[in-house]
């Protein structure tokens, strides 16, 4: 396939969507390079599908502009936009065979029968459906239907692939397999792909670029690891990572240069403490970064219950009136009801402004050196 002409960049400028009086998207600005694999992640109802459908042309754009390959597509019909879409429920035509399903787009485009059949076979081979071409969708398993939906999208050699939660109806094992296949397929076709999901594992593993959405706003855009290490808001911090990040509402105590978490005081850099004086803060720390000491440590806590993960364990503990999760290795010998101590390395703390929920970027807690602001600068990450 001729790769160069199949790629497209996508610009989304100040796009809004209202259904009647209720607004579901409040001004989205995004820019995707051609060939990129973009994942849009967010909780159910945040407007991911709406955004995707507006790119596809299935939903009217209330305000703003969407451009594909620098051509504004607001007024174009879906077929004029060069996108292919894989629907969450697959939307296979129940009265057509697998071959007819896959070839329908070519039939509509009046591709001659011989060529059509050749391309149907070719595409079926790519997704491993050769034996099933004469079956109806009702006679296929979930995974096979998913493949038909994929085949139907790739046969058109689209410039843009749109996926709306395509894996959410599959069982866990199949989901992992299909995830890998989608990624492989992307490397092969290298069309711009936009993949919508509410599953953070899918998002982290698939994305070149990750877009986190919440309530019709874009919360953060970036590479998956950047977003994991430097969540731009309390929402992103709590949404990405499993088990979820521990978050505490607190204030800085300037005279002791520490923050109070539960009953304990965690010392922080005095310069930082001075900067954050008097501000309402939310402080976060990932469960993986907390150290559990069976024989008491800096912060005393009591274990509520323990979740086995196989590779490790999640300890849910109580310290004062706060609950808390920490990941420990299997060799650490603790049980529910035990009194333990927690180490909260201050370098691993994330600081957020409590009112706006936005990140407060400080050298002290950033692990990504090239993006560090000067030690004395105080910036709210965008």
């Amino acid at each position, binding site marked *: 396939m001729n790769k160069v002409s199949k790629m497209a960049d996508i610009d989304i400028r100040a796009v809004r969507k209202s259904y009647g009086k209720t607004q579901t998207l409040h001004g989205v600005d995004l820019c995707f390079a051609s060939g990129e694999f973009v994942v849009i992640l967010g909780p159910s109802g945040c407007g991911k599908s709406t955004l995707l459908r507006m790119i596809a042309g299935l939903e009217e754009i209330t305000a703003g502009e969407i451009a594909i390959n620098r051509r504004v597509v607001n007024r174009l019909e879906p077929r004029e936009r060069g996108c292919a*879409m894989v629907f969450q429920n697959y939307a296979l035509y129940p*009265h057509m065979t697998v071959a007819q399903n896959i070839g329908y787009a070519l039939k509509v485009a009046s591709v001659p029968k011989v060529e059509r059949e050749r391309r149907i076979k070719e595409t079926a081979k790519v997704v491993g459906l050769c034996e099933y071409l004469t079956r109806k969708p009702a006679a296929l398993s979930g995974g096979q239907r998913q493949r038909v939906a994929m085949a139907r999208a790739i046969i*058109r050699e689209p410039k843009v692939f749109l996926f709306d939660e395509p894996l959410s109806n599959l069982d866990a094992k199949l989901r992992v397999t299909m995830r890998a296949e989608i990624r492989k397929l992307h490397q092969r076709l290298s069309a711009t792909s936009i993949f919508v999901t509410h599953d953070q594992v899918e998002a982290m593993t698939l994305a070149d670029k990750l877009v986190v959405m919440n309530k019709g706003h874009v919360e953060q855009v970036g590479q998956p690891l950047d977003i994991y290490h430097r969540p731009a808001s309390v929402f992103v911090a709590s949404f990405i990572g499993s088990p979820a990040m521990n978050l505490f509402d607190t204030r800085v105590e300037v005279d002791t240069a520490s923050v109070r978490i539960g009953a304990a005081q965690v010392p922080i850099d005095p310069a930082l403490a001075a900067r954050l004086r008097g501000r309402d803060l939310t402080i976060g720390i990932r469960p993986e970064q907390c150290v559990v000491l069976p024989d008491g440590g800096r912060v005393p806590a009591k274990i509520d219950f323990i979740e086995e993960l196989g590779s490790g364990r999640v300890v849910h503990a109580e310290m004062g009136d706060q609950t808390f999760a920490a990941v420990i290795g299997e060799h650490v010998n603790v049980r529910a009801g035990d009194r333990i101590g927690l180490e909260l390395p201050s370098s691993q703390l994330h600081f957020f402004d409590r009112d706006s929920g936005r990140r407060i970027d400080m050298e002290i807690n950033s692990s990504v050196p090239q993006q560090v602001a000067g030690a004395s600068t105080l910036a709210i990450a965008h």
Partner: protein
Amino acid sequence: MEKRSVFNSWWLPILFALPQILLILLFFYWPAIAVMKWAFTLEPPFGGAAEFVGLTNFKEVFADPFYWKSVAVSLIFALCGTFFTILVGLVLAIAVDRQLPGSGLFRFLYILPYAIAGPAAGMAFRFILSPERGLMASVNAAFPDFWNPAKYGTHALVLVIVIFAWKWAGYTFIFLLAGLQSVPRSLAEAAAMDGAGPIRRAVDIQVPLLAPTLFFLLVIMMTEGFVGSDTFGIVHSTTGGGPNHGTEVMVFRIVDEAFKGLNYSGASAQSIVLIGLIMIFTFIQFRFIEKRVHYK
């Protein structure tokens, strides 16, 4: 556990069902048996017990060329009527299903004709399409006798078919709209992504998925066209079977023979033939068409 209420006595449930049983006996079984009896007997002209005459009544009916004409008229009426009611209902349903602004109002308007009695619609159309004063009058002024159902049998037949379709399209419309709305919207969207425009989507996706509804309507409308009370009512109030037997559908001829000609035996024989015809039609529909219907 499921709780069931059970009648303790045998007569109480019968009592509850009695009104319905009486109605069925009185208005269905009794006439049906009477028709069977009349079809094979002849009333002596000056009283006395009816005489069994075997198939004589049927032979007489089949020997009458006007009878065969009424069979042909009925066939044309039912086939064309069914075709146009379903076609019009389908087009309207697809249009309303697109949910453009105002579709709620149109949904209401399209159903409305179904609420009007056939004879009333017939009377109205007699004026609306009257050759001297109606919508076609100006055409007639330019081309005399272009439209004259009072003079030409074919025009009259077109007229009654139009009225039938006008009234019953509202009925097929409801069913087809309900059918369309049960087709997942994502299928039409997938077809749109595959490059199909609205008409292509309707033909390739929506209509095939409506096959069960279409089949149901085919059976219902064919039966309605042959024996429906509207078929009689429309013909009776519009053309009276004329001109020259041009719109004399089988039901009209039966009623005419029985209550104008007072030939109960002949009318009964015709009724039995009609019932037989409907059974054959329904059998053909189920045997050969239903196979092509996808029920998913």
